[in-house]
């Protein structure tokens, strides 16, 4: 019974997503600032707020998922061996850097923010990636996929806020379209590699391709989250706001569906269960 209940639910998926969007938005806006200069100033200012608030919301959700929420500070104390401890420090430093950037607007802080933003976004994939007993997650492709998705959803979030504030950030639609294409490619390779990996990894991939989570995957992740936004972005700047909304929805569903199909290696006598073993 409870063995087949997922260990982590929608709150952890939402945390993986929000940490990605927040960290990704600050990191990518910061990179564009250094490449394109002053025209990205407003984007970076929006992204600093997004980074602080979204990552804080995600962290709050994660803490609420703990069995002992009041002991949350203890997660900082096993940094020598626990990836989660390392991540807790990374996220804390990232939020501090966002806060400092909002206060001072310093470029050194921005540079560090890019570094810690990318680390935060990738960490959400490393968290699952190091679990060698769960073959579908146990790949270095996962942090890369989550990082690209974080850049893409981060751009989408900055784009939405910028448009609602009356800024013109039309250039963002082509940048996001690029990331969406890379993400489609990465997802394809990820599934191909998993299909040819262990029995469990292959079955997990099948759950997304044709199993219990196939509607969510093909409908939510591929169609709504990637394919339609790609077309909308390339078609017209007027509807690219809609594309950004869809990219964000797809980003969450991506985290949720990957979280749900990560079965562990089967023992003799065990059979694959949809949901978690």
């Amino acid at each position, binding site marked *: 019974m409870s*063995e087949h209940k997922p260990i*982590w639910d929608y709150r952890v998926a939402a945390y993986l997503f929000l940490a990605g969007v927040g960290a990704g938005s600050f990191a990518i806006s910061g990179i564009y600032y250094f490449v394109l200069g002053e025209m990205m100033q407003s984007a970076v200012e929006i992204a600093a707020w997004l980074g602080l608030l979204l990552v804080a919301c995600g962290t709050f959700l994660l803490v609420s998922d703990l069995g002992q929420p009041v*002991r949350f500070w203890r997660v900082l104390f096993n940094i020598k061996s626990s990836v989660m401890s390392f991540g807790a420090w990374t996220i804390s430093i990232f939020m501090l850097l966002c806060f400092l950037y909002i206060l001072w607007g310093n470029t050194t802080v921005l540079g560090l923010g890019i570094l810690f933003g990318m680390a935060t976004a990738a960490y959400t994939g490393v968290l699952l990636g190091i679990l060698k*007993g769960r073959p579908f997650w146990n790949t270095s492709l996962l942090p890369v996929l989550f990082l690209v998705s974080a850049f893409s959803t981060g751009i989408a979030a900055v784009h939405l806020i910028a448009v609602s504030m009356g800024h013109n950030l039309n250039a963002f639609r082509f940048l996001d379209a690029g990331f969406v294409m890379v993400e489609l490619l990465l997802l394809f390779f990820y599934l191909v590699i998993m299909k040819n990996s262990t029995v469990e990894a292959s079955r997990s991939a099948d759950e997304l391709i044709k199993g219990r989570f196939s509607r969510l995957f093909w409908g939510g992740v591929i169609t709504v989250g990637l394919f339609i936004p790609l077309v909308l972005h390339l078609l017209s700047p007027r509807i690219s706001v809609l594309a950004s909304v869809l990219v964000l929805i797809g980003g969450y569903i991506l985290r949720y569906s990957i979280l749900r199909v990560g079965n562990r290696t089967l*023992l003799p006598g065990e059979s694959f269960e949809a949901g978690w*073993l």
Partner: protein
Amino acid sequence: MSQLALVVDLKKCISCHACTVACKMHNGIALGDYLVKVLNVGPKGNFPNISKYGLPKSCMQCKKPPCESVCPAGATEINSQGVVIINETKCVGCKYCMAACPYGARIFNESKGIVQKCDLCASRRDEGLEPACVQTCLAGARVFGDVEDPNSDASRLINLRQGTTLLPHLGTEPSVYYCHP
């Protein structure tokens, strides 16, 4: 160093699930959760070479436990007897260890808000008793002892029957051994 663990003789196990029940009663395990579970393997093979047996599964008391290394709060430790234990005052209930354990040996105790695992019945051992699953096993399939003491019954059984561990390729170095039929 000693290493307390179980050796399970699969030739003797009759899949009666008494170990599961005894464990649940002694440790007060919630409905639907298990620290000890008997898996049904087979029937497999081709007639007349068919095999079917029960595989009692619990914490493997790994020497390199993934549950310990992933714990952000340092709440899981290996004690001087080689038993993997949870410090209940340190556990934050993040369930990362449950995701990391390749054997599905850990459960979440909803009422306490922390993770729970097999400690080979520490409270019973303090009174000089064997773990509940061992004492109750009517077939005598479970042998409890120090698998690093070459003279223990557990070690002798491992050597005699060439006991093996589960999922050795994951590098967790389990201490629980299985003697195949």
